[in-house]
């Protein structure tokens, strides 16, 4: 843990990121407990009220409490994003490393498939996939994994190609190591850091992607208070009720910022070469 | 005006107060080639950075003064310092590939340097070609249209030397300029560097850990060890009868002086 403390001291921006992420997780867990109203209690008499003591962040077009909706939406939004990112990082690392290690036809075929996936705009592809699978949160997440995966495979493959020709991997092959040994000991441990960092950088994009799918009705279904959906539905009332989009938007922005900065911090902690020489 | 006079320079690390350069005094006369040699961590590169007022962050000049062409660096405003770096001091680095911008033609990069040196726009191409010809580079007109990756390591380093001398600087600092080069390019680049410095009357501080290179091109050799100057004298004297134990130790490690296949005399301790 001393490595973590050292990084904290040397990297205040990264520490801010870690703090933001912790605050978000705290909010996701504790927010629903402190909220004064249920997230889906409709009160048409109190619709579009500005922030007040009764409704801390105001109410929406159906009189629902924005704070309550934000708090109840935090957990599903964050967990969905982390699930998608965790899956893409793991799958991407393995596929990329295998592709680099096998080379030849398998590698060529895999890369052409990746090229095709990358050629189609991510959101269009996600929409097509989500629509084909049927509108639900799980299907939206599967679609997001598929569209985010190519970038991770590409990155892992490029890194693995470099690592494979490093002297330590060459020495292992000279000593009779098979592909599995090289993959397990020389590629994966050295890939882990950069892939996790890249994954953390991607969390915000995935939250936004899930929001986009939710907005067109292919993600979490209303009245589920998912953050992207909150921004989207507040859009119509932007002129008179700024609080509807502002607070969920702010939450998304802080999440994006937090995970990005955390990514930097994690890179410093995971990279042993960044430590000062003894 | 003496190109470089450093007196009693002491540089510390701010975090823990560790002394990295300890009371260093040296001077480089006009037209003189001075070799600054020592092992990694001896403080030789740091000395060069101090001489152009570019100490890395976290380091602090504790004492001493640095005069470049008669101008004291201490208390110089940023603009004046920048002007000094543009007109009076040049720096040549170890790796000629990273010192040049990979996406721009040699000609454009030379023109930039000439513009900074105050060369009028209309004269720049002619001046650039003359500079490259001075470096004995073949077909300067064609070279101007080339990109750095199309040149060999030795050619790139010669282009950098041409750039370094374009403003007729009083002082040139060359930090390990031959280390990254092939053996045959090394000798040629060294010869051109020294020839150019003597022609222009610039003082040349040649920083290297390659004792052979220093021996061949320098009028005077300075040896640094542990942040201190331990030896200062003509090359023949320093290599012939070194006065300090540190210099003797350094020279003892040279394989060219040893009996073949007999252990080289090295001090205790493990590296």
């Amino acid at each position, binding site marked *: 843990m001393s490595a973590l403390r050292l990084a904290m001291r040397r990297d205040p921006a990264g520490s801010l990121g870690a703090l933001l992420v912790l605050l978000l997780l705290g909010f996701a867990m504790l927010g629903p407990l402190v909220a004064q109203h249920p997230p889906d209690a409709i009160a048409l008499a109190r619709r579009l009220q500005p922030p007040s003591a009764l409704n801390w962040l105001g109410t929406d077009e159906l009189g629902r409490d924005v704070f309550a909706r934000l708090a109840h939406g935090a957990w599903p939004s964050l967990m969905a994003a982390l699930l998608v990112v965790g899956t893409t990082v793991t799958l991407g690392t393995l596929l990329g490393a295998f592709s680099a290690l096998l080379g030849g036809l398998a590698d060529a075929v895999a890369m052409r498939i990746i090229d095709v996936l990358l050629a189609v705009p991510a959101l269009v592809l996600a929409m097509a996939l989500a629509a084909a699978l049927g509108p639900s949160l799980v299907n939206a997440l599967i679609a997001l994994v598929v569209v985010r995966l190519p970038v991770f495979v590409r990155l892992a493959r490029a890194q693995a190609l470099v690592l494979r020709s490093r002297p330590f991997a060459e020495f292992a092959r000279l000593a009779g190591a098979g592909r599995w040994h090289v993959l397990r000991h020389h590629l994966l441990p050295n890939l882990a850091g950069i892939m996790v960092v890249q994954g953390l950088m991607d969390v915000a994009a995935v939250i936004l992607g899930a929001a986009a799918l939710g907005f067109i009705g292919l993600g979490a279904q209303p009245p589920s208070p998912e953050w992207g959906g909150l921004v989207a539905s507040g859009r119509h009332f932007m002129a008179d009720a700024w609080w509807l989009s502002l607070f969920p938007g702010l939450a998304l922005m802080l999440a994006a910022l937090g995970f990005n900065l955390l990514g930097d911090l994690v890179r410093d902690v995971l990279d042993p070469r960044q430590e000062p020489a003894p | 005006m003496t190109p470089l006079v450093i007196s009693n320079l002491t540089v510390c690390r701010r975090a823990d107060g560790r002394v990295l350069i300890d009371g260093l005094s040296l001077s480089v006369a006009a037209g003189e080639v001075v070799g600054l040699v020592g092992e990694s961590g001896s403080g030789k590169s740091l000395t060069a950075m101090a001489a152009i007022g570019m100490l890395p962050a976290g380091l602090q000049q504790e004492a001493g003064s640095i005069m470049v062409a008669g101008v004291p660096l201490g208390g110089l405003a940023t603009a004046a310092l920048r002007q000094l770096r543009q007109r009076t001091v040049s720096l040549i680095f170890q790796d000629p590939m990273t010192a040049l911008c990979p996406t721009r033609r040699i000609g454009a990069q030379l023109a930039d340097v000439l513009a900074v040196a105050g060369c009028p726009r209309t004269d720049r191409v002619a001046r650039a070609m003359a500079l490259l010809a001075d470096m004995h580079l073949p077909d300067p007109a064609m070279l101007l249209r080339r990109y750095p990756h199309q040149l060999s390591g030795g050619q790139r380093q010669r282009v950098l030397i041409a750039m370094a001398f374009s403003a007729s600087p009083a002082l040139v600092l060359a930090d390990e300029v031959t280390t990254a080069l092939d053996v045959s390019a090394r000798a040629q680049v060294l010869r051109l560097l020294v020839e150019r410095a003597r022609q222009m009357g610039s003082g040349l501080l040649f920083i290297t850990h390659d004792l052979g290179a220093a021996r061949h091109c320098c009028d005077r050799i300075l040896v640094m060890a542990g942040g201190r100057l331990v030896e200062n004298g003509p090359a023949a004297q320093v290599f012939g009868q070194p006065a300090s134990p540190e210099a003797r130790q350094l020279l003892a490690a040279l*394989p060219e002086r040893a009996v073949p296949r007999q252990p080289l005399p090295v001090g205790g301790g493990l590296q």
Partner: protein
Amino acid sequence: MTALLAARDLRWQPAGAKAPIVDGVSLAISPGEFVGILGGSGCGKTSLSRMLAGLRRPDAGTLAWKGAAGSPPRGAVSFVFQDPFTSLNPRKPLWWSLTEAAALAAPLTAAARRSLADELLVQVGLPPDHATRFPHQLSGGQRQRIAIGRALATQPELLILDEPTSALDLSVQARILNLLLSLQASRNIAMVMVSHDIAVIRHMAHRVLVMDAGRIVESGEPTALLAAPRSTAGARLVANFLSADI
């Protein structure tokens, strides 16, 4: 005496290259011998050394080990790379890197690996408490010692070294060269060292081969050969070498 490793007419030309990098090289290395390969950059000396180690398959030509045609048995030939900063896996403790080759050759318990690592550390002149350190905690010279220790783990009879000291300080180079000499004396390991540094080769080698454009253009006893090279490539190397001892 049968040669330890004999190479006949090795050739290698990478796809798209205009000329072969290694163009018909034959050589034989005796047990316990130290062979230096000298040449400028691009002469093919590194490619040749990789072929001898089995790191690169030649397009044509054969290897023979102790008179029998074919590649050497696994572990009999080992390799030390030029750059001490990329030659060790940054994520593995030193004991792991030191004993990797031995563990690949025969299954070893964790305890056996640790004791082998301690033994290897002593052999290369490092204290055993370094076993649990990581490469980034070591200096360049220390890393190169680990690279040599790692190469010794399988008890090789031939060690191939690609410019092992060119990235190191002079005093560190001297210590590494001394280590190699003592290993030759104590274990009679044959060594092939690729270098562009005439002084190092003259100091270390029993026999020097001068390479140019993929061929061996000259060979002989180092001191005599370098005093009066007969080939133009050899003469060029000597003329361009900046000795600190004029």
